């Protein structure tokens, strides 16, 4: 019991991106705390959340970077994309403008992460169907055209929130399994932890760096 939080074999870095007010922080909060946060303050720079999930019997720790959506932080948040294994690109189904900006978010996500980064498009606020401004179909089509996973979700009701994070994780895990995601590559966004360590030999040699090795 006590040791459970530290038993996992992978760490995936996720980023959540999208316009201001689409509910990025609320999605994260719902995912990590299983609660809806009604008054969510503007995120400064980036906030963090973690949760351990299970994919194909493997425990995976998601390290989630919830970026600020405000335009004025855009230059800052771009710095945080590096090394993300998964990206949740969020828009608000009741505000068309947030959908229209997706191509710009997608450009950033593509340019600033590695080619294997799994991107999932999330239409948030699915509970507000009456005020819908973006149809499921057109978003679905946009996702298909761009090779994205897609879900409509609601941070308020919790609908599909779990799945949004899980689907991306499954895809990443699949990429690891079929070898298309090289764990040793710089900035794969995935850290693998040896599962059966022999405790005690801790003074052994330093491991080679996984990230940031520029040579």
């Amino acid at each position, binding site marked *: 019991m*006590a*040791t459970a939080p*530290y*038993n996992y074999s992978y760490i995936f870095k996720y980023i959540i991106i999208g316009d201001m007010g689409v509910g990025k922080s609320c999605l994260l909060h719902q995912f990590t705390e299983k609660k809806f946060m009604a008054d969510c303050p503007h995120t*400064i*720079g*980036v906030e*963090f959340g973690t949760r351990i999930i299970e994919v194909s019997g493997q425990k995976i720790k998601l*390290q989630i*970077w919830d970026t*600020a959506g405000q335009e*004025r*932080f855009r*230059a*800052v948040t*771009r*710095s*945080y994309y*590096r090394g993300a294994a998964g990206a949740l690109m969020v828009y608000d189904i009741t505000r068309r403008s947030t959908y229209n900006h997706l191509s710009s978010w997608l450009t950033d996500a593509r*340019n*600033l992460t590695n080619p294997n980064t799994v991107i999932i498009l999330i239409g948030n606020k699915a509970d507000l169907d009456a005020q819908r401004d973006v149809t499921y179909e057109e978003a679905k089509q946009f996702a298909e055209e761009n090779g994205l996973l897609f879900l409509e979700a609601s941070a308020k009701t919790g609908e599909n929130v779990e799945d949004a994070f899980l689907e991306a994780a499954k895809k990443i895990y699949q990429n690891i399994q079929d070898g298309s995601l090289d764990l040793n590559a710089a900035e794969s966004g995935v850290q693998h*932890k*040896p599962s059966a*360590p022999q*405790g005690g030999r*801790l*003074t*052994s*040699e*330093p*491991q*080679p*760096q996984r*990230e*940031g*090795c*520029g*040579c």
Partner: protein
Amino acid sequence: MSDKDDTETPVITETTPVLNDGNCEPGKNPESADQSAKPKNKPELVISTRRRPEVKCASDLETPEVQEPVSKDVTQSGWGYWGSWGKSLLSSASATVATVGQGISNVIEKAETSLGIPSPSEISSEVKFVAEETNTRDKENSLAGPFGVFSTISTAVQSTGKSVIAGGLDALEFIGKKTMDVIAEGDPGFKRTKGLMNRNSTLSQVLREAKEKEELWTANEVTMETDKNTHYGLLFDEFQGLSHLEALEMLSQESEIKVKSVLNSLSGEELETLKLELEQLKEAFSLAEFCDEEEEEQKGDEDFTKEITELFSQLHVSSKPEKVARARNTAYEWIKAMALAEKKEGEKELEGENTEKVSKNSVEAIHAFAIRSLAELTACSIELFHKTAALVLHGQKQDVTALQRSQTLSQVTVVLCKELSSLSKEFTTSLTTAGVKEKADALNPLITAVFLEASNSASYIQDAFQLLLPVLEISLIENRTESPTHEQQVLKPLSEH
């Protein structure tokens, strides 16, 4: 940039003999070639005033003998840190000797008797001397940088030639190393922290690795709940310290690249003026020293909150140090409550006998809470620095200059580190009081652990502070560029890199 390095390099080489003097001579082996190559590399590597050179090359990793460089780095980095910390630790010890009489000096004595090093009164009187010496020297020698205190101490040592002082320093180094061994038993991951600090990884990488080790350790061992509670690295990560540090590093690196590209794009007089301005900024970043230890004395509870809040208001960023203040105040309240309980315990003790178990529990509880508090306070401090960086970078119009901000942030760093220092003193005093009945070899590791983690915490905070330099540099550059279009041209391609 290079001027700075020139002044720093001698410090490094100067200190090496003193350090290796003691019991940590790495031995003469293939490594010595590596050793001699080091100083040459250094000027290039020590970008700005950072302590940990960010070498991106794997040459170091390829060396077949791994144990040696590690121990060597322990000495160096250990000293870089213990240097600044050691002074405040010991000078406060000397202050406490006079006033409390049972506080820190007792602690140190306890630590020492088990380690077999000079007596505390010896050290503290010597240190008083060093401190005075240092204070006078501080005035002449303010170019110090992160090596600041250390270099002044070492010059004091050299100029006076008092071997006693060197002895005192040896002792401190010895404590440091012993402590690390002691800690390593209970806190295995962190043994590596020290060793790796000067190697070619970023601080967050080092801490992450250390934390992972701890995770493995805790996952493996059939550990008790209490045991897990004392793993600084795990706790630091739990408080999201690691993530914020990593994020801060990313902002810092990005800014550094931008600054370089701006510098490359300029020439002639324009370049010189900018360089001059950046130099001033850098100076503000090397002033974080701990000189006014004496006047510090017991401050009221609200003072820290007030001080840090005031400093932050001077920064003109929208982040507030509430979290740090809360973490700090929680810790103090806990200590107070503990002391009260302790006192009651003591009264009961006069009547009954059954207190041994209670005291043991409380010693462990104090230790666990101390480590937790230090981890939390450090994580919050780093979060604060990260948020500040993000806000400085988002490029809204400012009514404070980058230089003013740097100076304020430097003060913030000092305040935070002092707070860590006095917090650790509170905790160790509390430990000493609670553990009167404990055997020295049961109590000492706990006390040293608190001091060590406090010292580590202070180093992390200072390192995080240094990461802000490129951020403020780019902020300075962006603010002075009158035409934003020009600046956009320079910066755009990089921000999308």
